[in-house]
């Protein structure tokens, strides 16, 4: 479909696309190369002679070793995984039911409730973190994973609900009616007829919610204080920087390893993720 002379193809297509790719992916390359580069090569002034920053002939695993022996990185990974999975499960549970109710049941205030949930979707976390930290402390949830498992759904549920509403609306009414004529209760029709049809939507909502909770930062930063409770993003920030000293090797190793689980989850469900992302926008 790319028409025209070869030079046009290069000027209008290949060169811009390559520049975009370099711009978007270079930081990750830099993360990887720093992870495996020995300290002696890392801290060389940028005007040193014979300095090639883009490659190393002496790859090392020291930074990764430091991460697992000198910090609680493995604990942070487990914490993050547990928190992300639990809050995703809660959000899916709530979002599926709420989405079903709002899209397929007739009841008073259905419209305004739907709008209300959409509006909470637009509330940024940074608007409420200070009063929320006080509430978390009052509920005695501070410095526990539950402070995050219970608060993450506040920005995941609206999105899940919104996405599921779109999927449920697309299921024809006749499907449900047939089941009910055959004697299924409303509950059974929902559980065995409607929800199975919406499985792709559930996967999309789930993978999107998982990446969002894996990436969350400000609540985790404010609600957690002891090193053994932290999530990867907060742990890396608070434990690998001492005052003004940045341990760049372990920092980049932590950034790389902390990104891998979410990148793997993403790579398995790219299509679902993309439809979740675009569905969340289109509604």
């Amino acid at each position, binding site marked *: 479909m*790319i028409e025209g002379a070869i030079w046009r193809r290069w000027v209008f*297509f290949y060169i811009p*696309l390559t520049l*975009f*790719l370099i711009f*978007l992916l270079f*930081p990750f390359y830099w*993360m990887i190369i720093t992870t495996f580069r020995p300290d002696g090569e890392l*801290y060389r002034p*940028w*005007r040193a002679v014979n300095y090639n*920053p883009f490659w190393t002939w002496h790859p090392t695993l020291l930074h990764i070793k430091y991460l697992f022996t000198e910090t609680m990185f493995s604990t942070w990974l487990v914490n993050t995984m547990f928190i992300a999975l639990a809050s995703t499960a809660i959000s899916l549970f*709530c979002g599926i039911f709420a989405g*079903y*109710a709002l899209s397929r*049941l007739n*009841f008073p205030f259905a419209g305004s409730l739907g709008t209300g*949930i959409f509006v*909470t979707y*637009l*509330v*940024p*976390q*940074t*608007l409420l973190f*200070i*009063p*929320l930290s*006080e*509430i978390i402390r009052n509920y005695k949830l501070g410095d526990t994973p539950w402070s995050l498992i*219970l608060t993450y*759904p*506040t920005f995941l*549920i609206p999105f899940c609900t919104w996405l599921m509403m779109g999927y449920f609306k697309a299921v024809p*009414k006749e499907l449900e009616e047939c089941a*009910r*004529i055959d004697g299924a*209760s*409303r*509950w059974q029709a929902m559980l065995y007829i409607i929800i199975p049809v919406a499985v792709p939507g559930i996967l999309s909502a789930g993978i999107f919610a998982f990446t969002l909770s*894996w*990436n969350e*930062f400000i609540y985790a930063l404010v609600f957690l204080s002891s090193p053994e409770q932290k999530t*990867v993003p907060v742990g890396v*920030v608070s434990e690998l920087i001492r005052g003004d000293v940045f341990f*760049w090797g372990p*920092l*980049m190793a932590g*950034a790389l390893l*902390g*990104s891998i689980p*979410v990148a793997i989850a*993403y*790579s398995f469900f*790219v299509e679902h*993720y*993309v439809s979740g992302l675009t569905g969340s*926008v*289109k*509604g």
Partner: protein
Amino acid sequence: MAVTVAGADVGMHQKPPRQKWRPLENERSLAFLLLLPTLTLLGLFIAYPFVRGILLSVSSARVGIPGEFVGLQNFQRLMTDPIFAHVVWNTCFYTAVTTVFKLALGLWLAMLLNRHFRFKAFTRAFILLPFIIPTVLSTFAWKWMFDPTFSVLNWLFYKLGLISSAINWLGDPDLAMLSIIIVNIWRGVPFFAISLLAGLQTISPDLNEAAAIDGAKPWQRFIHITWPLLLPVTMVVVLFSVIQTFADFQIVYVMTGGGPANATHLFATYAYQLGVGTGILSMGAAVSLAMFPILFLIVIFQLLYIRRVETR
């Protein structure tokens, strides 16, 4: 309602296999039960904190001290606070500049990706990485690239002969602002590109072909066909992005911490510094609540505009 009647009718003739639990059969009570978990969580952790936030912002509370009612004193103090004035300006500037660039670059990238070429699916998957990877972690990679002594960008510019002395990216107020703007654009372009690409794919190629046959040039086709048809999607994407950018925290927190000399503070980082850093909860709550009216206006304005575009 027709469904209920039909279902009940048939139920009378053929005996249902099991006794149905009434609250699950009635539409209203079922809806209530299904919405209960969602409303509980959103009420406890969105509505209640919102009210608490307003109460905090009109009190003199600090960490560990409940404080007392002081009326609008905190907001009055913000009005005369030179740092807060700077915060308002910074946030608006940061949001406006990044949104324009994210939209322009995102649209360009979306149009490139809308063609057919080898490894298209692969490219699209890779392009989303900046959006998937935890922002804090990828921002550290940028901070390392902007490092005053070991910056790879300085090395590159030096080798290309563009500079002769090191650029102190994060030490100079204007360059620090430029740096966080670059990182925000980097993180946001994939979201714009992929969402707009989804919008582009809903536009029938027939329209463009018909216009091309009638002699319309590529840029004419873009202005008269692609852009108007893409406008509803564009508006929603911009709405989401503006809200996220306006309330941004992570990039500034990692890159500059609001410095140098408060030059890059946004609402969220200033609220964090006051509320969590120095423990003046009331002032922190006031700063983050000050975002609310502006966000509210943005949302109302854009929702009205979207409605107008969609009904046109």
